[in-house]
């Protein structure tokens, strides 16, 4: 460490707070990212895929995709275990 002068504690405190804040931010974001990817992998293992993995809904807003899936056809049509790709 170079000589930081008479106010070294302030300089170290500033860098320290920044380090803590940035680390917390990075950890929070990366952890969330990993969590979502894990959840997605689990769901895909259970055979629940998006209705259209690479077709029309990709261009639509995410909300529209959610609205579509929650407006799914009534029980008469859906068969459990049926895969759609």
């Amino acid at each position: 460490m170079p000589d930081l002068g008479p106010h070294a504690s302030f300089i170290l405190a500033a860098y320290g707070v920044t380090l803590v804040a940035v680390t917390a931010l990075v950890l929070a974001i990366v952890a969330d990212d990993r969590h979502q990817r894990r959840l997605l992998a689990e769901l895909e293992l259970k055979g629940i895929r998006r209705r259209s993995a690479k077709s029309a809904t990709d261009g639509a807003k995410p909300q529209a995709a959610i609205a579509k899936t929650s407006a799914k056809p009534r029980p008469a049509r859906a068969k459990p275990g049926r895969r759609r790709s």
Partner: protein
Amino acid sequence: MPSLANPTRFLSIVDRVVPWLAALTMLLLAYGLYLALFVAPPDYQQGETVKIMFIHVPAAWLAMFGYTLIAVASLGTLIWRHPLADVAAKTAVPIGATFTFIALVTGSLWGKPMWGTYWVWDARLTSVLVLFLLYLGLLALWQSIEEPGRAGRAAAILALVGFINVPIIHFSVTWWNTLHQPASVFRTGGPTIDPSLLVPLLVMALGFTLLFVLLHLIAMRAEILRRRVHALQQIAVERAATAQA
């Protein structure tokens, strides 16, 4: 940007970019820290405490940059209905707020050895404080509205209202400051910054900016995946319900 409007395409771009960007960011920040702590000379006025500037100024710049990004994304949500706009806006808020917080704290720690007090109501710090309050408002609003579509549009309106007000607030705070503080507010390193201080500052600024972009991309990916997970969980629930029916 049609290719970036497609969430899946966007995700694959992010997956490819993130590793390189992370490496570049770490290199730049490491180099910047080295320059800041070991190479930069003391300022003739402030001594070594000028080293705090290498964090404070980039953080303040990112506070503004972040809010501008949110404002542009909000335009995307309200006017162009870009599908990823509200994702961009939502994820930028915590990142921008963190850098604003860093700007405030480092500004305060910079002030104590300089002016003898931990807080000073000068135009710049006060404006950053108000900006922090605007970020907090956005956070609170995002958390309070459950339906993501409505939350995205409401937050977009609030962000734009705030963005329009920022210059007005800054102008009023500056004017108020001249009323109450005839003494000169100190300038960073004098009328012009010496190159030996400018280079570390720019490297740190660039490094932190890349860090912002990197974290933003990762957060956007996480948010897109979160929405997919949510949708799939709804399908799972419906399937379980119909299986029992």
